[in-house]
């Protein structure tokens, strides 16, 4: 019985300690519009802009770092995405350097790609007064749960990969994303297949996840609207190792091409399986999730003649090459091998840091003041911002990529742009 008393006392103590430890975060209380927005200028030197900003200012004391947060799955089956994003982000922070004597710091937290994790990470960031922006979250589910929390405290989001179309239809001020929406890509893919490649019978597959399914459904709908025949619209179970059965069934209907919404792993297996299930002559048409050296490695000769997509990148710029080298040297694997969003993550982190430097004001007391509302607007107003993964314009709702995708075909083991 004594042991139980000790244990309960320890737990109680831990709880009290935990509740006392962090400075009661004023940022966590909802600074909603109705509350008196004007804070009495805390210390001499706080710029006037902070009093009029609807979210107030983030104050970075000398010696503290300006934190850019990142929410992504870092454990579990999808951890390749999170680890890759963190790797890119770290290079971005290192490349950016100091600002007015203050350093940036990347704080990557694990949100397991789910709403539960997204909300937990968002709450954590919201409670930390030195987190000013979030290069995430990576998955749409987590972004949905996190965005309302950031909206309350004024932390802008710039996601490298959340593609659920509804995210920008909620009226969030803080949410922005750089990948093109499924609507855009699906339409462009359908048009390319019908008009340029002349296919009339296409089977549409997806990996039953949010991203792939949305994409394939839109592409199929557009293809049908153009006059093509949607032979089949099916979901596969992602991360399986053999898709021969479903492909054999599709082969019975004789499609000219197989469109796939999903990522390289499943795409590789499907491409290989196509050769032994009667679909040897069908063309594999992928998306931006299937693009990468990863795909080439997996499929070797079987991948010849397959199509993929990416954002319209500037032709290989020296910055991109420098980034690729830096990534390889720092981590021992090539960019894009862990996830296709490596370059997006670099750009989102860099863009956030750039906007911070634009709106930040050095106070008289040596601390850095970052007006949150101004930052949110600055990120939303990104216009013609060019990074290593594309050119982005975010107004009015936060869909930053309004140009369509660029398509690539695999020829002789390499990607060749076709439009």
């Amino acid at each position, binding site marked *: 019985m004594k042991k139980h008393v000790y244990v309960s006392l320890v737990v109680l103590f831990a709880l009290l300690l935990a509740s006392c430890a962090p400075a009661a975060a004023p940022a966590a209380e909802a600074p909603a519009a109705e509350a008196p927005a004007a804070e009495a200028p805390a210390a001499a030197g706080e710029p006037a802009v902070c009093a009029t900003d609807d979210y107030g200012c983030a104050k970075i004391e000398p010696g503290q770092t300006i934190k850019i947060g990142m929410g992504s799955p870092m454990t579990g089956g999808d951890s390749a995405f999170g*680890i890759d994003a963190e790797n890119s982000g770290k290079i971005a922070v290192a490349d950016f350097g100091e600002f007015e004597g203050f350093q940036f710091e990347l704080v990557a937290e694990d949100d397991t790609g789910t709403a539960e994790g997204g909300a937990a990470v968002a709450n954590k960031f919201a409670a930390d007064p030195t987190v000013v922006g979030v290069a995430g979250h990576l998955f749409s589910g987590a972004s949905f749960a996190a965005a309302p929390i950031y909206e309350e405290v004024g932390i802008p989001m710039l996601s490298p990969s959340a593609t659920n179309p509804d995210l920008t239809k909620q009226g969030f001020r803080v949410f922005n994303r750089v990948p093109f929406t499924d609507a855009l890509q699906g339409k462009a893919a359908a048009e390319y297949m019908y008009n340029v490649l002349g296919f009339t019978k296409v089977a549409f597959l997806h990996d039953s996840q949010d991203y792939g399914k949305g994409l394939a459904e839109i592409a199929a709908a557009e293809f049908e609207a153009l006059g093509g025949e949607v032979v089949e619209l099916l979901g596969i*179970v992602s*991360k399986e*190792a053999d898709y021969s059965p*479903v492909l*054999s069934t599709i082969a019975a209907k004789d499609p000219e091409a197989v469109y796939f919404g999903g990522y390289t*792993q499943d795409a590789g297996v499907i491409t290989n399986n196509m050769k032994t299930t009667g679909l040897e002559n069908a063309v594999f048409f992928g998306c931006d999730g299937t693009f990468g050296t990863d795909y080439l490695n997996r499929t070797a000769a079987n991948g010849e003649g397959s199509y993929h997509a990416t954002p319209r990148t500037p032709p290989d710029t020296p910055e991109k090459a420098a980034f690729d080298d830096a990534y390889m040297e720092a981590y021992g694997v090539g960019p894009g091998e862990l996830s296709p969003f490596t370059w997006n993550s670099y750009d989102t982190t860099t863009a956030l840091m750039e906007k911070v430097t634009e709106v930040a004001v050095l106070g008289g007391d040596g601390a850095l003041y970052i007006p949150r509302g101004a930052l949110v607007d600055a990120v939303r107003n990104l216009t013609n911002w060019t990074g290593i993964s594309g050119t982005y314009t975010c107004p009015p709702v936060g869909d930053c990529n309004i140009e369509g995708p660029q398509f690539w075909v695999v020829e002789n083991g390499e990607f060749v742009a076709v439009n």
Partner: protein
Amino acid sequence: MQAKKESPPRIKRRNYFNIIRTIFGILVAAYVVWRLYTVLVVEQQYTPDIWIRLLIAGLIIGGVYSLVAIGYTLVYGILFMINFAHGEVMMIGMFAGYFFLEATKSIQTASGLNFSNAHPVITVLLAFVIGMTVASTTGFFLEKIAYRPLRKAPRLIPLISAIGASIFLQNAAQLLFSPQVRDYANPSVINRGIGWPVTIAGANITISYTGALTFGMSILLMIGLYWLVQKTKLGKAMRAVALDKKTAALMGIDVDAIISRTFIISGALAGAAGVMWGFHNGITYFYVGFLPGIKAFTAAVLGGIGNIPGAMLGGMFLGLIESIAPTALGISYQLKDVIAFVILIVILIFRPSGILGEVLSEEKV
């Protein structure tokens, strides 16, 4: 005085649960028959060669499931615990094979090709040997660290320990090898996607080399295991320990050693399954053992837990169901796991000890 089943002696009274069960069974059977009729007779959109392709794919997957299921059943028959970490043992075997293949890829031979392409047969065999060895070592240590101290504990405790071991191994692999999904570097002779062109029922079907390899090795290993268990002294000892530990100990059998050896054998089988999986499908990463692990356990239960031929049958059965049932029943392929689980539940409702019946010791009761 043994009651092999836990359910109470059948009392002859109108048990309305039984009535519900019968109605349920009739409904399910009716649905299946109707769907089969619709797909096969009415719509008839599939030519025989499609069915043959599905059959081949099903047999290949079934072989892999069988091997892993045998591993589960061996352990359950002896210890009455579900070895949740078995899927991870398979994953470790897969990684071992992967590293070996990567190593052979970089050794250059006189003929200008790398070692793997120059001597494909030796490479493949060595990959299996190495995969199986590493996996069985893992199984051995797993038992020693996480299961042996818990042998006398109530059933739930080793189960949680197994779950913990499974999570630990998965994440250890992720942290050691990064979550990057890797590809098996097959010797180019047996690259994925190429095979023998055969003409069956008027259509050209390709039987892939890796598929044939997988199926062949599974059958070979299953025969080998059956011989081991039925015809060798070790097998006899294993069966004795599985039947009644105390009496076996009285007869002079070292129960601890036999249990260790069982884990080694089941680990070896899982490792072989992992290497096959790698050759045939290529996907290698830390999470790959999770789903096949659960499915293989389902297969073992389906065939009758503790029953080795049952596990073989269950594995094949599950593989074929996964492959053929969605098409045969006209249900979306996305729901193939749902079909598999539903079939499991249906079979367990009507035959609670699995298809071939369970083989468990008297201690269980």
